[in-house]
């Protein structure tokens, strides 16, 4: 496969997202009439087929390129030119390099498993075909996002997964609360999308500044110009900071929205209103990881700005801590998992923020496996409880003792809990350890070394918390004795549901071994470092623009430090588990209850109310916005548009009608009024008014001048005086009764100059003066 490989006219790479999209099209249009078997065959088949194509593309052509050293370049295929406006050109292009390869494999594989799971889980849902249609649509969008070769196409996928998230969270929209949750997810995502767009525009502008034709948002172009001077130009607003910081932070805000970081994470816990497969797919494995992927994809951008990286890492850390804190007091099974997702995403962003791109992706992958397994397991539990008639299937306080009733679910859940707590040899241990190691040894230029240590300590606390609350969850759900009737009666879920669980648990066990840390002197098989090497070409390994010289991001750590870090991480995880066992080993503990009522009351309250984020947002944003909306409705909609414009127009028409009706009421005398008034108007308006002037005719050496008083009734009786000798004063005429020359027609002989006529309007006594220069073509001398 190369740049031009097409299949049925469509570039081969484009088939990877296209297959699920076609499945969505089929299911959403004719699925309602089709049988359930048809629907899920189409859906599952599409995703599996996409996985096959992806696997082929990755392991054959791309692998070759990787061995040739061109893994970072990869294969780019263009479908067609999408936008071409001015100097901006965006093509619908797909890019398969090592980074996107990892992502597509995860998305399609986990996606297939979840599609399989949904067959059993949603078996009794009336909108079966819609569900699978949306799932396919989501998968297709996510694949577009991941395979995008430029930012606009990525944005298509970005928006698409946001839309599908909304559709799927609010899938059971008859419930008002669920529908609101979907809306909340969409709106919060939108805020992030806005920042994403701004970042995109900024990037485009930056590339344009380098050279006008080079303005583009292709990742390849962006990367090549990033090493150049443009991204390091100062942005006047920010003083000495770099453009990269601004763009990076804006894009990161978009990632916050999509990946549920502080402060835009509020939608994720509410999103548990959707069906559990949705939570597993979207909110564990794929959509929420889009932000992490984006940051890694633009690694060169973030590496250009220390500020951006520090922002990313700090926000990630804070999120990790806050989410862990909030998870302590939750009593809903899925909510605990949701907060743990947020927390783990914080881990991933810390990794990205310390330049440890591979660690971030590694954790992304392992997290996908064990979190999806956890969610699906939770779904299995809830499904069983519901089957037994529980009205609150998610309430962990009503569970307990399920390890005997749901063995497979229990086993897989146990494995995933071990993985998330970071216990060797499960996958979570290795990925988390890499993050911790990277954080410990990071040293951004210009920042004290302490920064990395602070990050490390914070992450450790978060990891401790993670282990604690996850195992609290485990013990309350599976250990002890059943605390309610449904729990006593629950039995295992069907094979379609447990099979994916097993697969995921297996992966959660084994996946860690492709990312072992380097140890000097220890020769480990090549595959243990496979991930690192694989991802290396696609991400950057250096700080850019950090001053003279180029610094590698990864610091050098010795063997001792590495092992010490591993042991510390392990110890933290184990103590978390131990603590949880201590308090919750036999079910809800009285000690905890006492602590909660007593000294820990404040903390417990804060945790239970999720640090009042929702309440604060409601007060600051939602309420004023509602007031504004109401105000606009009342003023603009009701008053301006309805009353003034629409009703007002009708009212004016009515008035005119009323006036017109006055004229036509059948009364002939009234009509005559119109005639007379019209006649008077005609008289009033027409007033022909030629201006007073005189014209003259040259006859021989005489000029015959005739006065034209102008039309208009006053002209006829006007008084006229002449000045015919150029002295500026009216002339005398002894023959005329008044002594002035007042004839209408006068004759001038031999005068060559200006003749002036004064005409006085007898009615208004206004004097009009007309002066004209008379040109005689006859010699003045000798003429009398």
């Amino acid at each position: 496969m190369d740049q031009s490989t097409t299949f049925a006219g469509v570039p081969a790479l484009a088939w990877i997202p296209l297959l699920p999209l076609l499945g969505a099209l089929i299911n959403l249009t004719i699925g309602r009439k089709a049988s359930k078997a048809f629907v899920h065959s189409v859906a599952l088949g599409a995703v599996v087929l996409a996985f096959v194509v992806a696997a082929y593309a990755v392991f054959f052509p791309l692998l070759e390129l990787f061995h040739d050293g061109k893994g970072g370049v990869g294969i780019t295929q263009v479908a067609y030119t999408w936008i071409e406006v001015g100097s901006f050109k965006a093509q619908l292009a797909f890019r398969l390099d090592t980074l996107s390869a990892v992502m597509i494999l995860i998305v399609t594989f986990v996606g297939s498993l979840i599609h399989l799971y949904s067959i059993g889980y949603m078996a009794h849902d009336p909108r079966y075909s819609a569900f699978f249609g949306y799932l396919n649509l989501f998968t297709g969008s996510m694949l577009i996002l991941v395979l995008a070769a430029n930012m606009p196409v990525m944005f298509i996928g970005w928006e698409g997964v946001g839309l599908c998230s909304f559709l799927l969270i609010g899938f059971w929209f008859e419930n008002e609360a669920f529908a609101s949750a979907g809306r909340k997810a969409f709106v919060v995502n939108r805020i992030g999308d806005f920042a994403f767009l701004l970042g995109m525009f900024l990037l485009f502008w930056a590339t344009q500044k380098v050279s006008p034709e080079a303005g583009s948002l292709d990742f390849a172009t962006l990367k090549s110009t990033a090493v150049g001077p443009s991204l390091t130009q100062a942005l006047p607003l920010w003083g000495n900071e770099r453009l990269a910081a601004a763009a990076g932070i804006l894009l990161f805000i978009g990632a916050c929205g999509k990946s549920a970081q502080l402060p835009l994470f509020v939608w994720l816990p509410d999103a548990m209103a959707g069906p559990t497969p949705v939570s597993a797919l979207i909110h564990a494995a794929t959509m929420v990881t889009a932000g992490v992927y984006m940051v890694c994809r633009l690694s060169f951008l973030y590496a250009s700005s220390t500020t951006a990286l520090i922002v990313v890492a700090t926000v990630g850390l804070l999120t990790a801590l806050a989410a862990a804190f909030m998870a302590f007091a939750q009593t809903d099974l899925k909510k605990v998992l949701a907060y743990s997702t947020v927390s783990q995403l914080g881990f991933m962003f810390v990794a990205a923020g310390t330049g440890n791109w591979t660690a971030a992706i590694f954790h992304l992958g392992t997290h996908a496996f064990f979190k999806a397994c956890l969610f699906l397991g939770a779904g299995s539990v809830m499904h069983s409880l519901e089957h037994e008639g529980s009205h609150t299937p998610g309430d962990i306080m009503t569970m307990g003792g399920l390890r005997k009733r749901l063995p497979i679910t229990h086993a897989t859940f146990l494995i995933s809990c071990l993985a998330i707590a970071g216990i060797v040899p499960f996958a979570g241990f290795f990925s988390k350890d890499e993050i911790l190691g990277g954080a410990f040894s990071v040293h951004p230029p210009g920042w004290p070394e302490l920064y990395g240590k602070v990050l490390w300590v914070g992450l450790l606390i978060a990891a401790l918390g993670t282990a604690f609350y996850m195992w609290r969850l485990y013990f309350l759900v599976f250990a002890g004795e059943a605390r309610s009737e449904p729990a006593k009666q629950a039995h295992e879920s069907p094979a379609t549901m447990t099979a994916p669980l097993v697969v995921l648990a297996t992966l959660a066990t084994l996946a860690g071994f492709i990312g072992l840390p380097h140890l000097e002197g220890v020769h480990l098989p090549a595959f243990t470092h496979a991930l690192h090497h694989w991802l290396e070409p696609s991400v950057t390994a250096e700080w850019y623009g950090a001053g003279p010289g180029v610094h590698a991001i990864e610091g050098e750590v010795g063997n001792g430090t590495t092992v010490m870090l591993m042991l510390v991480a392990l110890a933290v995880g184990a103590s978390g588990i131990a603590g949880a066992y201590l308090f919750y080993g036999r079910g809800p503990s009285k000690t905890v209850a006492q602590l909660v009522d007593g000294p820990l009351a404040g903390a417990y309250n804060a945790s239970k109310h999720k640090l009042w984020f929702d309440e604060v947002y409601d007060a600051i944003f939602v309420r004023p916005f509602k007031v504004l909306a109401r105000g606009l409705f009342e003023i603009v909609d009701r008053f301006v548009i309805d009353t003034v414009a629409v009703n007002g127009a009708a009212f004016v028409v009515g008035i005119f009608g009323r006036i017109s009706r006055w004229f036509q009421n059948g009364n002939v005398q009234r009509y005559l009024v119109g005639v007379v008034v019209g006649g008077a108007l005609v008289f009033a308006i027409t007033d022909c008014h030629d201006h007073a002037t005189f014209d003259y005719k040259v006859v021989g050496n005489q000029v015959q001048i005739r006065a034209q008083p102008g039309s208009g009734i006053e002209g006829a009786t006007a008084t006229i005086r002449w000045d015919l000798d150029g002295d500026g004063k009216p002339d005398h005429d002894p023959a005329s009764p008044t002594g002035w020359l007042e004839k209408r027609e006068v004759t001038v002989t031999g005068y060559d100059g200006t003749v002036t006529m004064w005409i006085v309007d007898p009615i208004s006594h206004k004097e009009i003066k007309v002066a004209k220069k008379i040109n005689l073509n006859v010699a003045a001398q000798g003429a009398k």
Partner: protein
Amino acid sequence: MTSLVWNIGYGHFLVLAAVLFLIGVAGVLVRRNALIILMSVELMLNAANVTLIAFSRMWGDKAALSAHTFALIVIAVAAAEAAVGLAIVVAVFRGRHNVEVDRLNTLRH
């Protein structure tokens, strides 16, 4: 100004005719008795006649005397119209016992 009083020109006749005409219009507008209205219409016709004759006099023998014929025809037409109009008034009066035109509105919606 004295010239206007003592030197009667064609304008005087024309203005006289116009004034008569306008008084006729006023009568039609203001009165509600059908008979008065008819008389006002006769006034208007008369005014038109005066105008005709005045202009005819102005042309003198430069034009044929057809204006006088015209005026004669107008008088005849006015007579015919008065006859028929009065007959209608009588008929209306027979039914309604009054001839006020503002009460003749049963054909309105």
